[in-house]
């Protein structure tokens, strides 16, 4: 698949590109929902299926040689079973509608969770394995008419956007003799924040107020208000009461009333001998510490200036800015 991606840079003729896209779904251009149909579903015998084919061939040769009529009958009966198993495998995959639901975030080196939704309008499906280009496959059963979320994870190697990439849905239901699979490639990407520096460095001095007040705890924070819920918001910040009332999904925002003064994290003020990634790591660790202590902070990066603020949304904005900070021209 990587090699397939590399080819695309060589600008092959358009028909070849079209066919490669159709066969291998190399580009993330699928639009939700993708309903698995014959154009996407591939089926080949499994290793066990191939062994059975070999056995059936030997049985056929034996039956022919010894003119065993019942031998022919047995061979063809199992061949019929084998063929019917192919249809079962195909039916188990065909008609499933796949949609992207959410892409998670993580720190570099951690696992990003992507959530897909599998909708089954037809008969029950069994043992649908969903796998990414790496990481373990997860297997799921879909009852008739059910829609189920499936979560797959990818290890984020470094900060930045992490594309989900091509997802393979496969199944060897009912007899394990055939493996049917289909590719879906959504433009879905999660975000990997820089790995926070460890152990966490001490916070820089605040803009105002004294260090003594910095010990204020998050518990002292006051509810500042509600804002619209965004996927990925911390569960303990969701206004569950509002959800229960049916008023909609909101996320609670806290203002660090008793917290220390506003902090300002400046790229430029970091020691000059730190390389850019180490700087981002430290800024990330500071952001987390500030958030943990419910203090408001501002972030200043070359090209980005985030005014002071607090809360999950602010934290996310800051971390995203760090994650997407361009590597090259920064230093």
């Amino acid at each position: 698949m990587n090699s397939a991606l590399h080819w695309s840079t060589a600008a092959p003729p358009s028909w070849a590109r079209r066919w490669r896209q159709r066969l291998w779904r190399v580009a993330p251009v699928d639009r939700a929902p993708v309903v698995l149909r014959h154009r996407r579903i591939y089926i080949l015998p499994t290793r066990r299926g191939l062994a059975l084919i070999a056995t059936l061939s030997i049985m056929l040769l034996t039956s022919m040689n010894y003119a065993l009529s019942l031998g022919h009958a047995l061979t063809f009966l199992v061949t019929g079973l084998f063929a019917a198993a192919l249809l079962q495998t195909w039916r188990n995959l065909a008609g499933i509608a796949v949609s992207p639901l959410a892409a998670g975030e993580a720190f570099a080196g951690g696992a990003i969770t992507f959530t897909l939704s599998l909708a089954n309008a037809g008969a029950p499906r069994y043992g649908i394995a969903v796998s990414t280009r790496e990481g373990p496959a997860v297997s799921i059963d879909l009852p008739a008419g059910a829609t189920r979320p499936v979560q797959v994870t990818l290890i984020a190697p470094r900060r930045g956007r992490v594309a989900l990439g091509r997802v393979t849905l496969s199944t060897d239901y009912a007899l394990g003799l055939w493996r049917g699979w289909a590719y879906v490639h959504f433009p879905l990407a999660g975000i990997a924040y820089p790995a926070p520096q460890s152990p966490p460095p001490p916070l820089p001095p605040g803009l105002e107020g004294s260090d003594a007040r910095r010990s204020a705890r998050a518990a002292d924070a006051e509810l500042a208000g509600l804002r619209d819920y965004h996927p990925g918001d911390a569960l303990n910040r969701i206004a569950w009461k509002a959800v229960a009332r049916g008023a909609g999904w909101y996320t609670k925002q806290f203002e660090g009333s008793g917290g220390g003064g506003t902090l300002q994290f400046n790229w430029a003020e970091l020691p000059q001998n730190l390389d850019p990634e180490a700087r981002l790591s430290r800024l990330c660790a500071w952001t987390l510490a500030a958030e943990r202590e419910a203090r408001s902070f501002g972030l200043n990066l070359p090209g980005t200036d985030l005014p002071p603020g607090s809360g999950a949304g602010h934290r996310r904005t800051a971390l995203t800015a760090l994650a997407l900070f361009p590597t090259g021209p920064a230093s």
Partner: protein
Amino acid sequence: MILAPDTAAPLARPQLAWLAALVLLAQLPLWPYLPLWVAAAGSGLTAARLLLPADRLPSPRLRRWLLPVLALAVAIGVRWHYGYLLARDPCVAYLYVLVGIKYLEAKGARDGGVLVCLALFLTLTQYFYAQSITAAAVTLPVVLVLGGVLASLRTAPGANSGVRAPLIATARMLAQGIPLAALLFIVFPRLAGPLWSAPMSAGARTGLSETMAPGTISELSLSDAVAFRVDFSGPPPAPALRYWRGPVLSRFDGLNWSALSLPSSGEFTAATSRSIEYTVTMEPNNRPWLFALEQATSLPRPAWDEALTSASSGRVLARLTYDRRLLANVPVAQAIRYTQRSALGDRFAAAGNFETRDNLQLPRKNPRTVAFARELRGRSASDRAYIAAVLDWFHNEPFVYTLAPPPLAGDGVDEFLFDTRRGFCEHYASAFVVLLRAAGIPARVVTGYQGGEINPTGGYMIVRDSDAHAWAEALLDGSWQRLDPTAAVAPSRIEGGLGAALPQGEPVPYLARLDMTWLKNLQLHWDAVNYQWQRGVVGFNVQRQQDVLRDLGLDGAKPWQIVALVATLALGWGLAILALARRRHSRLDPALASWTRLGRRLARAGLPRRPTEGPLHYAQRAAARWPQWGAVLYRIGENYAQLRYGPRDARREELLSSLRSSLASLPGARTLRGSAREST
């Protein structure tokens, strides 16, 4: 949501149980054909692994070197038992035990896959020995369990989906596969001869042999086994004319008769009476002769289409020797079916003068018989008068026709004729021929079958081993004349069969008795079914295949045309199965089927349902897009929501019909796309 199963995990208990069921079911039908120790070892190993707790079994490390040693020991044992290893029977025996050994050492799902293949092939090997309806019937459970094994092997080791569900699923797939299997069975090319000539093991040889000692035929007569079945193209001949000629015995050592070795070919003589035509289906007996009514006027030809006139094949199955035996090209190891023509008659021209010499030989034994013969011949005017006198003597003296004669030794014929006077047909035929030869008349013993029973169910004749018979032939005036001394002693044997001729209290085989009990009736019905099975399924060979293809109008088709036809039919089969499955599913949940149809139609019109969207929301969104159909769309959404989430009461039918009619009143996707209002 679970992680996909790990294929390297050790086999779990349910998987082992499934595999054991498969292995034992595959082994079971072979038990009667294997040496006892092989049968016990193969199945014992399987049972041991299944029944013993894991900690009582040898450790895996011990097993790793123990099992190859065991396999080698079994190979030596099989070699010792059969005398050779690389032939069919020892290979079957070895495979049988090997499956047990493999089961004992099976560790993961991969070993399970190997076992499946081995067990499947082992199942096939039973057809070397029997292709009966019973053999087919015991195969079906094997295939069902095969599905169960495969289903259990692909699941996670911890999961146990029970026994019923996988069996039902497999049965359904088998039923789906049967049309394809039948198609392949009919059109897949059959071979006229073997691809390779494997060393054939000598199967159990049954039926008549080329030697006859006192007791040979009476022993055979105790069996109800079917020797062959006959379809007559006209009315069957009268019982007294049903002489089925088999081995002809000319050599005599004083007690035993044997056939001349490798006699040269003979020629048919002109038929003296009208020929009758019939088709014989012989059970395998591993003997090299075919049977025909006296006297054969044609060589047996492979039977198909019931037509001897079919000129398409000059193939014959046997040659005629000058003593009028039909010697098959190969021993009859499988049921064969041949068409034969005969002119009913009891005489035919001799091949030449050399036959006189062959058929006068007598050992210097049985002095009383020789003296009696010379004395009686001296009193008779001619050979014919002498023969009549001998037959009269048999008829008038107190000879007894019995299945249990006293044993004879030394001058057996003397003892029989003058002391014991109790014997079966072989005693009478033997003594009679000795009496003729002693009087200078060339004569010989003919063995075969006499009689046959018409099965009213199928309208064909069954000839059983209990109809085995021996009679005599004398060379008179250049012609061989059939003479049956048994007819002089027990005339009812010839007219009514064994059951009519034997005295009360003799152990007549059940089916040879005269009383038609319901059980015998049932047996005849079963035989008719078996016969059809034999003809239609087991006997489905090159000829019958051509026959069927001709009936289908495909006899002139080129191979690629047949392949194309099969491919088309297979494709049609797949589409039909998928369509049937879809219909079955929509019958299961009609509301969901309608809702899915709506979703598909609106998606084609440009408004796919979002994965998280409920019916009411979706209907609302659709109604906003197509206000002119808003009411209908709302109704569909509400009906479906009611059906899916509402109470299961009597209103469901009403809701369902409303849902369906609303869906029917909605225009197609193309119209909808054309009339969509631009909105968000």
